[in-house]
């Protein structure tokens, strides 16, 4: 397969971004939404990698993002580091926590693992709240500086979506590598993967660590864009939203979480606001998941497969089933 074909998702996304952003950034509100949605998309992508690929149903991604955000805030505001110097911290800190935790819990049942991620998320949130000399406690940290040359919201929208494209590029590389294939096998049959020479807890933990780094980057961008972080900024509610975004779009598909992010955000904006919104939102989610169990992308793929099948049988091309049937 050629270089281009194996980066289809990256290309599609890059083209969409290049077409959409110049239009979107003409309006101040859209620009702001684009920047925030990019940040959420990164968070949803981190769920995609963790849940869709490594099979860890994670409820801690917003906590990892807040680690990235606080890393940015503390390094720049408290210690006076130049912005960008804090990026490695925002990348590594979540991974350094995620990896050992995953090593410990990856052997457990999927449900127990999910609950452990919920617990680690809560622990991080509590730690941030209580280390108030350091994190500002419930008041948070204000005045996080911009990232050097990037100041205007439109520049942030570009930077953030460039980051989304980069992450999708890396993600796609991973999927087309031996490690990505191994993760795929692992999700369906641990024993089969082990017989290929995969060390399941190790690989899953590594994938979870990468996913937490992606969440860390989204937090890093958040802190610099909004300029303020507090415990409510990236709270547990957002972890659940990110999971929903990934699942609705199609967690196992590379672009699924991004589609889910746009869709769910659109939904909250279209639905009548105020007290009952949560109810409508819940109903809409249930309907989507009933119609598309594997997310919107799963639905699209199922449709395409049917069309292909139809066309093939019309054109008289031999299908796999016919290969089977015609065997000697």
């Amino acid at each position, binding site marked *: 397969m050629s270089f281009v074909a194996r980066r289809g998702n990256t290309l599609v996304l890059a083209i969409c971004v290049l077409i959409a952003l110049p239009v979107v950034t003409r309006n101040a509100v859209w620009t702001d*939404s684009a920047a925030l949605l990019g940040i959420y998309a990164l968070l949803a992508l981190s769920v995609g990698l963790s849940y869709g690929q490594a099979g860890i149903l994670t409820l801690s991604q917003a906590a990892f993002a807040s680690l990235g955000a606080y890393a940015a805030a503390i390094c720049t505001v408290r210690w006076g580091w130049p912005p960008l110097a804090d990026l490695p911290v925002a990348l590594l800190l979540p991974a350094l926590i995620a990896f050992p935790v995953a090593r410990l819990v990856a052997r457990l049942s999927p449900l127990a693992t999910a609950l452990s991620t919920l617990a680690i998320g809560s622990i991080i949130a509590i730690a941030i709240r209580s280390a108030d000399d350091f994190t500002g*406690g419930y*008041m948070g940290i204000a005045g996080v500086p911009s990232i050097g040359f990037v100041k205007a919201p439109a520049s942030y929208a570009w930077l953030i979506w460039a980051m989304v494209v980069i992450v999708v590029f890396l993600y796609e590389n991973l999927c087309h590598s031996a490690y990505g294939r191994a993760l795929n096998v692992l999700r369906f049959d641990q024993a089969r993967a082990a017989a290929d020479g995969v060390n399941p807890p190790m690989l899953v933990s590594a994938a979870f660590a990468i996913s937490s780094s992606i969440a860390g980057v989204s937090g890093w961008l958040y802190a610099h864009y909004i300029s303020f972080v507090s415990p*409510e900024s990236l709270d547990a509610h957002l972890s659940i939203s990110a999971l929903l975004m990934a699942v609705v779009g199609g967690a196992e598909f590379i672009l699924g979480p991004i589609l889910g992010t746009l869709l769910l955000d659109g939904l909250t904006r279209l639905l009548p*606001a105020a007290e009952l919104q949560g109810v409508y939102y819940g109903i809409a989610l249930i309907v989507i998941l009933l119609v598309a169990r594997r997310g919107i992308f799963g639905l699209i793929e199922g449709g395409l497969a049917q069309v292909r099948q139809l066309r093939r049988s019309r054109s008289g091309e031999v299908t796999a089933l016919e290969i089977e049937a015609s065997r000697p």
Partner: protein
Amino acid sequence: MNLRMLRALAICVGAVAMIAGSARAQDAPVKIGAVLSLSGPAAVFGIPERDAIQAIVAKMSSTTKGGRKFEISFYDDKSNPTEATRAVNQAINDKVVAIVGPSTGSGILAAGPIAQRLSTPLIGPAGTLAITDPKNEFYPWIFRAAPSDASDVRAILQDMAKGNAKKVGIFYQEDAYGKTGVDLAREVGPSLGLNVVETASAPYTATDLTAQATKLRNAGAQAVFLQISIAALGSSFVKAARQVGLSVPIYANAGLAQRSFAENVGNEVEGLRIVSIGNLPYDPTPGEAELAKMLEAAGKQPQGWGELTGSNALMAALGAIDRQKGKDITGASMRETLESLCDFDKFARGRVCYSAKDHDGWHEDALVITEVRNKQFRSVP
């Protein structure tokens, strides 16, 4: 038609258009945004804030005292700082000249840079100290519409000093809010002749507080200050104090001054003193009574001080609009006017004057010490 005539005509048309335009600018309602926590945990404050604003707008028929039409649109910050930034962005995009809110301190801190960048002042009904910290880059654009947390502490300590207490014990919840209160009391106390002799703390979920009460009793505290926002901690502490014989005045911070607290706790909190922004539900001043009447006319029952802080923010904005009679109003002009706004029409008690150095405006005289009596907050004279 020759060129000269054409030019003359163009000038005439232009002039007429300008006059008509400026007349329209005068007639067009001034837009104000209200970014409030209408959902989420902070909705207990956000919804009364909205109710008060709606009641006032209805009563005034969307016209200021000075006769200027205004229009108010509401946005939900969902008790979340990120949503607050989105809502503030949206409001400013909708051409508002000032924003009431966001409801929470973190919402204001998150939205501050946007207010600054897009030159639109925020009038925030929150007590969080940091929102008017002069070190904030966006300091010029934030005005407070409620007494700050420091004022609350000061009001309590002043009342203690009036009762001739010298030794103060503090019980606080184990978080930054609790610790901030202790720090403030230590800072303010000595100037009032008060000494913090002992402190005790507990996590949110503690139920038996006899150890903490005993500790404060043994230190010989003559008055106790509860820096808590969790209602259950308040009633547990008062009960424990009674059990261990700690019979000194107990004061709690404004977090508990909600109708639901007074009505839902048992007799054990009888006599507990709580600092409150006005006393809308039980002992209103004439101004507060006026607001309470408007609320009742709109079918709402006054809950606590959310209505007052919401009205404060709105009245400050309307006051600033009236000071700019006959002028074009922009976000920048609103900010400038607010910065010298003093003694405007409002419903809450206290004298308010903003200045370049004082964006807090509201101070201890906006507060009242209340006492829980018979499931009501009664103002202590």
